[in-house]
């Protein structure tokens, strides 16, 4: 992997000894063996010493690790609970956790920070409070809401982000956000450690935005969600799943168009179950159960404590190694499977050149202030090295269309822009997103006027 050198501008510890005083004797003795001693596999730049020596360079590591390093944990579910526990036992003391969910009774078989009396409460809050109650002298703040509510500055405020999510969409969002955060400035890199599980299987990976492959690069590794042809559901059902889909996809909108289906509402599942059962009887199909109905309409993925523990621990082990440099970190993907024996496969997942998120080419162009949009498009077509034929342009931040070749509606709408000065639509330093059939995905152009 490319060796990335970044400046380490770390604030001097402010009265760092205060927190340490609260530690009882031997609290960190397991950790200190590793942190105090050089190892043959650690990076040569690793400086042992946890701070017992009153030398500023020695105090550094402990202060960073135990007090100054802010870690964001996304998700307070099966992985999140484990991650929070592992982090605080590994010396991380300043953690924030985000989760938008509330606790459900089906979480209790693995999300060990929650008790039956917590059902209905926000996961992030209960998890944060439990950890602080159990483990002395750690700060865990929480946000009960969506990751999309937070802006770039928020994410820049952490040194490391660990993600234990079950949603593809949320993962794509945080991945893209962290990649876009970097721009041309390596000091804005925030490492993402991502974990995921499904039954006895899982994976842990380290994503260094713009340097390693990103989540989007590996989207094609995801298994496809099982869907059935709608004509099968409508006319030739064969499986109990077909009957359940009929109830939810076809029958519900027809009979209850004004009620939004809520798959967390047991009365809704009950309704779907009864309809599906009736339909199954009509077609002599067996196997419709309440549990299957719930599984199909909620797309339930089996989840157990063991797999979550393995994947979360692997993520936290990588986080610990990344932050302390006490050992080399994972480059960059570990797959785990435990249904048949116990296997891991560790490999370097390759960056996808045409990845829509991190494969985006970004070039800076120096442009004459006097250029019209039309001139600019002609200029782009002339530039041999980018090979554009029919470029369509929009503003990368606002999404505003500058000039589009198609569809005709937008071509007409944006045609008047051709005569405008580019500077009227794109300010100094702004970015333009270009799409063209000749591009694998898109091209980002940063405009610098001369």
């Amino acid at each position, binding site marked *: 992997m490319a060796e990335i050198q*970044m*400046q*380490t501008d*770390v604030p001097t510890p402010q009265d760092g000894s205060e927190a340490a005083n609260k530690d009882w004797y031997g609290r960190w003795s397991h950790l200190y063996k590793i942190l105090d001693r050089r190892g043959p596999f650690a990076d040569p730049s690793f400086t042992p010493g946890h701070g017992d020596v009153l030398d500023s360079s020695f105090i550094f*590591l402990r202060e960073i690790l135990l007090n100054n390093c802010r870690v964001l944990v996304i998700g307070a579910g099966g992985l999140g609970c484990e991650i929070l526990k592992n982090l605080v036992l590994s010396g991380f003391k300043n953690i924030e956790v985000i989760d938008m969910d509330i606790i459900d009774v089906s979480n209790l078989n693995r999300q060990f920070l929650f008790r039956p009396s917590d059902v209905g409460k926000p996961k992030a809050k209960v998890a944060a409070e439990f950890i602080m109650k159990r483990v002395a002298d750690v700060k865990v703040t929480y946000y009960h809401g969506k990751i999309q509510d937070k802006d770039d500055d928020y994410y820049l405020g952490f040194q490391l982000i660990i993600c234990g999510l079950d949603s*593809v969409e949320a993962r794509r969002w945080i991945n893209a956000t962290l990649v876009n955060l970097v*721009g041309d400035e390596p000091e804005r890199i925030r490492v993402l450690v991502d974990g995921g599980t499904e039954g006895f299987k899982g994976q842990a990976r380290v994503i260094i935005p713009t340097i390693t492959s990103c989540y989007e690069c590996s989207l094609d590794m995801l298994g496809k969600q099982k869907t059935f042809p709608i004509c099968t559901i409508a006319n030739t059902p064969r499986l109990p799943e077909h009957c359940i889909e009929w109830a939810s996809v076809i029958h519900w909108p027809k009979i209850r168009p004004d009620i939004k289906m809520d798959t967390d509402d047991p009365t809704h599942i009950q309704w779907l179950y009864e309809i599906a059962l009736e339909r199954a009887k009509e077609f002599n199909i067996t196997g419709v159960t309440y549990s299957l109905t719930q599984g199909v309409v909620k797309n339930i993925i089996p989840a157990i404590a063991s797999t979550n523990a393995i994947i979360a621990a692997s993520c936290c082990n990588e986080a610990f190694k990344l932050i302390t440099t006490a050992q080399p970190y994972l480059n960059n993907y570990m797959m785990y499977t435990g249904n048949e024996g116990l296997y891991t496969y560790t490999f370097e997942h390759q960056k996808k050149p045409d990845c829509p998120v991190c494969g985006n080419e970004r070039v800076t162009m120096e442009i004459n202030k006097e250029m019209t949009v039309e001139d600019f498009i002609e200029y782009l077509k002339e530039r041999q090295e980018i090979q554009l034929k029919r470029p369509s342009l929009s503003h990368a931040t606002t999404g505003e269309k500058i000039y589009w070749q198609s569809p005709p509606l937008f071509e007409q709408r944006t045609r008047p822009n051709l005569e405008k000065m580019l500077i009227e639509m794109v300010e100094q330093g702004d970015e333009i997103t270009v799409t*063209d059939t000749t591009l694998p*995905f898109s091209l980002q152009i940063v405009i610098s006027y001369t």
Partner: protein
Amino acid sequence: MIKIWSIKKDNSAAEKKKPKVSAAQIRVQKDLTELALPDTMQMSFPDEADLLNFNLSITPDEGFYRGGVFRFTFNINNNYPHDPPKVRCSQKIYHPNIDLEGNVCLNILREDWKPVLNLNSVLVGLQYLFLEPNADDPLNKDAAEDLRTNRKNFEYNVKQSMRGKDVKGINFDNVLM
């Protein structure tokens, strides 16, 4: 010592505008700007700033459905192209592969969708449904039955339905200009 990260708070950079457009939106821009829209199709956007929700009308120039204007709504979510676009017919029409609620039976909209497909593939698929309705995998069984057993009768029913008349006691939307 610590290479990968820094806890430097970069104030100058914080003000910089960063792309807020999602990968899904850029992908839709790519799909839209590369569309080869034939004369028989038109798109309209209720909110032109919102590329993820739009309408499509198809006016077939041959086949059973010639002369009609068939309207569809497209809803694309932020998980595109991992998830397929949701497409519905917004009129009540008589068609073997479209039911009375507007559900469309087209394989690439559900079980055969993959991220390498794009909006153009969906448009081509929809166009094809009007040129070659498939009677063997029906969604509207009555219409399919008519097409299989008596094409003349089916053709007549299509014409009736397109004018907004009843077919077998069901009233259809007028889709003529």
